């Protein structure tokens, strides 16, 4: 008799994921406009770990520790947050097309950021430096506001996930329309807004990392712990409540966590598309359909994907940078098609 085994996250999966992540992170730190020499950078890491002598000049050390490393870390946080939220949204809505922007987070952030650029033209300068200025704050609040509006509208229209998704569509198109209108009144700032929309990971150091770390950490922990509950939601609301769950409450918990993570990511990186939808699907196709595995692996997979995309964004047309959203869509779509083809047999 074969011994039935439940699908659980294995150490091997985590180890493979983390190894890949380390490779991408190290590559990302080594590559850049100024060549620090990979031997010296690795020696520097070793020196930092063991308390040895740094081989880098003060300026080189600053480039490494104040520019490259925080940028890579930020990329990992944003990518992980978007992918983990995407997985959670797909589970809660039992809809493979759901992504973290489904409930109006992107549209809300877009409108708020546009209004901020319009109302406080000085935020332009700050925006170009990507400091923790009014723009990220506006984007964060806008994202939360968009989701809140969707939730309120969905609640007033009835219960269930379908109304919520439809409310999200309504809110997103309304907010986007307003945003486009404001943008048209304000063409001289178009480039700033457009840049922000396409997303990017430029940083001024560790500020952004510290700013979003708490949100991403707490949300990810909640979502990873909710994997089993998301699986239960997969049997539909009636059966889930017959199993003793309060589906609406679980959904609220998951959506709040996922939306906070998304808002945090959007606030520092703009609208980076595709990560939240492609990464969970790739993992679903390659590993398993249970959310108890899918959610944590999406976290790692999103970090890997966005860190790698950022390497491409910085190096493909160096010294000028490509918007990272362009890279994620440009590489993500073919990669997704490849995985779909490669797993064709298993899905048949």
């Amino acid at each position, binding site marked *: 008799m*074969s011994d039935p085994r439940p*699908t659980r996250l294995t150490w091997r999966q985590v180890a493979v994921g983390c190894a890949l992540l380390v490779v991408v992170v190290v590559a990302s730190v080594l590559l850049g406009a100024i060549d620090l020499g990979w031997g010296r950078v690795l020696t520097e890491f070793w020196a930092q770990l063991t308390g040895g002598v740094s081989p880098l000049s003060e300026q080189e050390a600053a480039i490494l520790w104040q520019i490259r490393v925080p940028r890579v870390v930020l990329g990992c946080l944003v990518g992980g947050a978007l992918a983990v939220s995407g997985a959670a949204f797909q589970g809660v809505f039992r809809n493979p097309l759901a992504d973290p922007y489904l409930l109006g987070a992107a549209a809300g952030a877009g409108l708020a950021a546009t209004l901020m650029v319009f109302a406080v033209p000085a935020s332009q300068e700050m925006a170009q430096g990507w400091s923790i200025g009014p723009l990220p704050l506006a984007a964060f609040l806008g994202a939360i506001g968009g989701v809140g509006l969707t939730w309120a509208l969905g609640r007033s229209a009835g219960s269930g996930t379908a109304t919520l998704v439809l409310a999200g569509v309504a809110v997103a198109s309304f907010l986007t329309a307003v945003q486009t209108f404001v943008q048209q009144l304000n063409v001289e700032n178009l480039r700033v807004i457009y840049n922000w929309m396409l997303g990017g990971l430029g940083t001024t150091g560790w500020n952004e990392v510290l700013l979003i770390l708490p949100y991403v950490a707490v949300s990810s922990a909640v979502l990873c*712990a909710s994997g089993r509950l998301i699986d239960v939601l997969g049997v539909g609301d*009636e059966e889930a409540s017959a199993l003793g769950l309060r589906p609406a409450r679980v959904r609220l918990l998951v959506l709040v966590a996922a939306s906070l993570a998304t808002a945090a990511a959007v606030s520092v990186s703009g609208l980076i598309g595709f990560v939240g939808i492609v990464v969970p699907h790739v993992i679903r196709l390659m590993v398993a359909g*249970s959310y108890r595995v899918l959610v944590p692996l999406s976290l790692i997979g999103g970090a890997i994907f966005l860190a790698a995309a950022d390497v491409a964004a910085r190096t493909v047309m160096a010294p000028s940078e490509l918007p990272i959203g362009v890279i994620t869509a440009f590489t993500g779509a073919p990669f997704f098609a490849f995985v779909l083809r490669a797993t064709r047999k298993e899905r048949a």
Partner: protein
Amino acid sequence: MAELELRSVSAGYKDTMVVREVTARLPRGSWLAIIGPNGAGKSTLLKAITGITGHSGEILLDGAPISAMSARERARAVGYAPQTPVVPEGLTVTDYALLGRTPHLGLLAREGASDLVIVREVLARLDLDHLADRPLRTLSGGERQRAVLARVLAQQAGLLLLDEPTTGLDVGHAQALLELVDRLRRADGTTVVSTLHDLTLAAQYADELILVDNGDVVAVGPPAEVLTAERVATHYGAKVAILAAPDGTPVVTPVRDPSAVVP
């Protein structure tokens, strides 16, 4: 384990009550089959006992009203297999059956070894162990139906509500499933309420039948009393003969009226 009592229970959707005034008393270990034509309100009654739809009147489980129980308490006491289950296609059979342990776990807790033992046992009993690692989407209709029952049995509730548990099962698996449920009620005192369109099977397994038509209870009693050719004709609009099986239980079989055949 559980004694179920329904006191003038009515249930429905929004403001229309689609089943009215059902009264019944099931001692522990008994099996009640709800029969009746399509749309009579059988599933609605089961949903009311599960707590999915609202009800008026009283539903008592071991003397306590279920409306006073928390969702979790009720899920530990009542297992429910719907007529058309929503199947999460990506989960494996084992993962799916493990969902039945939900009411026994803390909100964010994981299943332990004992939960897995229960699931393994249930899968073996339902002849599903060789499919344990297969995603649900790759199962046949009857195999899925059994997987749903595995999930419900893993819940280890004292009261089982089974809505058409044998639809889509071949005669062998249907019999095996009903025998399994029958053993459970004899061994553990599990109380069973099921709807069954196969009146012969209903007569073989249930102690008592309730015939519902258009929301009203039209007959209650032991199978041999409830199942008469006239009743089936009146309420189902079917022409049947009631035969007797070797053990004496009634066998309901459709008969054709040669004069009704259009030339």
